């Protein structure tokens, strides 16, 4: 609104009370008080993480798989080593689901002589559910028959192998979750080792720079260039196959990425004015590294470690799959997959369950670490 004083003021402006025109700011004007509550870095990151639904779901999936891995092998009533050749290759049988025709422990046997069905030694009473197909081959009456595999093997009715059994009659669910447990242990330990080595190595490279950095970086590159399968095999020969040699194998080159990341972060942050400011205050080197520079690497570091976990699980599976896994009878996801694929056509469930689990695990870890990366990104600080 533009007002020309000479032409007279509009009523509502002219009639403002005198009291409106009292000076009110006689004291010294202070800085405004904050209206919000103080919030720490991690709390802030957590808040933002909570806003990402996918991360939360992934987190719960990961947590439940971990809990299952801890509990399941102890409550199935079977052990992962318990063999019973009579029970080999049993299909899944799950209480509840069996009544609706899924996972009821049945299997279709093909190319059976029709006559043999009446042989109660081979087909105990109640083991035959239905005849799927009848046909004739070379003048002999043949059938495909759906049987209750559990009854066929002479097992009591109340025995349930949820995920079935393998070729040695071991309970697959017990072995799967025991395997998850072992795979996760291998992954966590190798990642933690990698992070520790990487942080120390990268910090030294990045903080001191110059010749030290040049030498160490070249050394890492040489190591990175070596074919790691060969090194893994050497470890196996030296230490025998076992968890330790797998973890070591995953650590040979695994830390190099972390070291590079940390080194880059150091180069980025060591020239920052607040690091210089701390130096001019006389803050010693160790404190500079751990208090001023490293905390800035935590975000990318956590993210990287999180992404590395499914990577390590996958690498372990890969090694197991090509026969470089841990020593039997210890299971791991990779060993289960490897065993399963040899009977993939006859008993697909033996591959199915470990495959689903490793997929879910890897997707969940990846999505969760994406969410973490966004939440820990300092440029998005203070949003929301």
């Amino acid at each position, binding site marked *: 609104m533009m007002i020309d004083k000479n032409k007279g003021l509009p009523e509502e402006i002219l009639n403002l009370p005198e009291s409106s025109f009292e000076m009110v700011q006689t004291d010294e004007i*202070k*800085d405004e*008080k*904050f209206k*919000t509550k*103080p*919030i*720490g*870095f991690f709390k802030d990151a957590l808040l933002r993480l909570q806003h990402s639904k996918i991360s939360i779901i992934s987190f719960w999936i990961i947590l439940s798989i971990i809990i299952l891995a801890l509990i399941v092998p102890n409550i199935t009533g079977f052990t992962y080593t318990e063999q019973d050749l009579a029970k080999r290759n049993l299909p899944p049988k799950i209480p509840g689901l069996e009544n609706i025709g899924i996972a009821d422990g049945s299997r279709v046997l093909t190319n059976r002589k029709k006559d043999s069905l009446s042989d109660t030694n081979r087909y105990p009473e109640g083991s035959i559910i239905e005849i799927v197909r009848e046909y004739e081959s070379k003048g002999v009456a043949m059938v495909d028959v759906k049987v209750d595999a559990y009854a066929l093997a002479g097992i009591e009715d109340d025995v349930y192998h949820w995920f079935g059994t393998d070729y040695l009659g071991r309970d697959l669910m017990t072995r799967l979750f025991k395997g998850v447990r072992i795979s996760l242990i291998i992954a966590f330990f190798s990642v933690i080792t990698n992070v520790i080595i990487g942080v120390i190595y990268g910090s030294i490279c990045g903080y001191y720079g110059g010749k030290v950095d040049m030498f160490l970086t070249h050394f890492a590159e040489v190591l990175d260039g070596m074919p790691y399968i060969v090194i893994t095999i050497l470890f196996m020969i030296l230490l025998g196959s076992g968890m330790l040699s797998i973890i070591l194998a995953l650590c040979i080159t695994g830390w190099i990425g972390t070291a590079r990341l940390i080194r880059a972060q150091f180069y980025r942050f060591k020239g*920052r*004015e*607040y690091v*210089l*400011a*701390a*130096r*001019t*205050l*006389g*803050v*010693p080197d160790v*404190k500079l590294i751990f*208090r*001023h520079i490293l*905390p*800035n690497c935590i975000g990318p570091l956590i993210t990287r470690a999180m992404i590395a976990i499914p990577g390590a699980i996958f690498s372990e599976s890969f090694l197991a799959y090509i026969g470089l896994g841990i020593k039997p009878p210890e299971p791991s996801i990779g060993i289960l997959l490897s065993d399963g694929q040899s009977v993939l056509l006859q008993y697909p469930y033996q591959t199915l369950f470990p495959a689903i689990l490793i997929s879910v695990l890897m997707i969940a870890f990846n999505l969760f670490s994406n969410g973490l990366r966004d939440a820990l990104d*300092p440029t998005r*600080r*203070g949003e929301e």
Partner: protein
Amino acid sequence: MAEESNYILEVKHLCQHFSSGRGKNKLLVKAVDDVSFGVRPAETFGLVGESGCGKTTTGRTIIRLYNPTSGEMYFNGRDIAGPMTKDLRRYLTDNIAMIFQDPIESLNPRMTIEEIVGEGLRIRGMKDKDEVRARVHEMLEKVGLTEEHATRYPHEFSGGQRQRIGIARAMIIKPKMIIADEPVSALDVSIQAQVINLLNDLKEEMGLTILFIAHNLSVVKYFSDRIGVMYYGRLVEIARGDDLYRCPLHPYTKALLSAIPEPNPITERTRKRIDYDPERDHDYSVEKPTMVEVAPEHFVYCSPSELEQYQKQLGL
């Protein structure tokens, strides 16, 4: 340069060369080249020049963020240019503190204000948390912030407030001297005065010596007792602020003064800018230039013939 030892900080023939590349590609940058000046106790010495002239490097070399290539530096008579020992680092950091340019960059985003400001005390062995906190609160009060601000993180503050936090961090260890590197140039106009006034108050109250580094000659002139003008790594003129403004001698100083826009439409419309071209303005093929005291407290980097001309100009 006068050999008086009444300087609290004395810099003699300081050189800071940076090299990059190797062999044929080796590039030598003389960021600071044969710079000498002295700062008296409780004085503000302004270092002014354009970007890349080496003023920031000079400040950072004095506080030994960089190791000098050559030259001498003395603080209170003690050599501070020598090899870096634990003792020297302690001496330097106890006596000289620095204020940085960028109010966002210069505070650690992962630390609270209390941790940032109190760090100087903690690394000096103050263990008692309550004592640190009390000192931090006292210092925050002094820079116009409140106790309530202590638990906050830097990103919650405005530029001016952050710069005041930076000042509090520098002042809490009670240094004898402050190196202020462009402390206001990243701030909004309305905020700059807050920071300048604060620095002025602290200077009076604590008898501080300040080395004030900036590119804005108006601010340097307002703030400093004496001013050194730098051009491409060299100090070309040192004088008291008024002298420098009234009778600048070195052609670069003249050019710099003539380029500053003043908030006055009358003078601005008629302003004549003076160009500086070292090739054209100096003939150093025969006579080599040196730093000469032309008049009391007024040093110029010039050759003997230029000196004569300058003296004439001053009516000496």
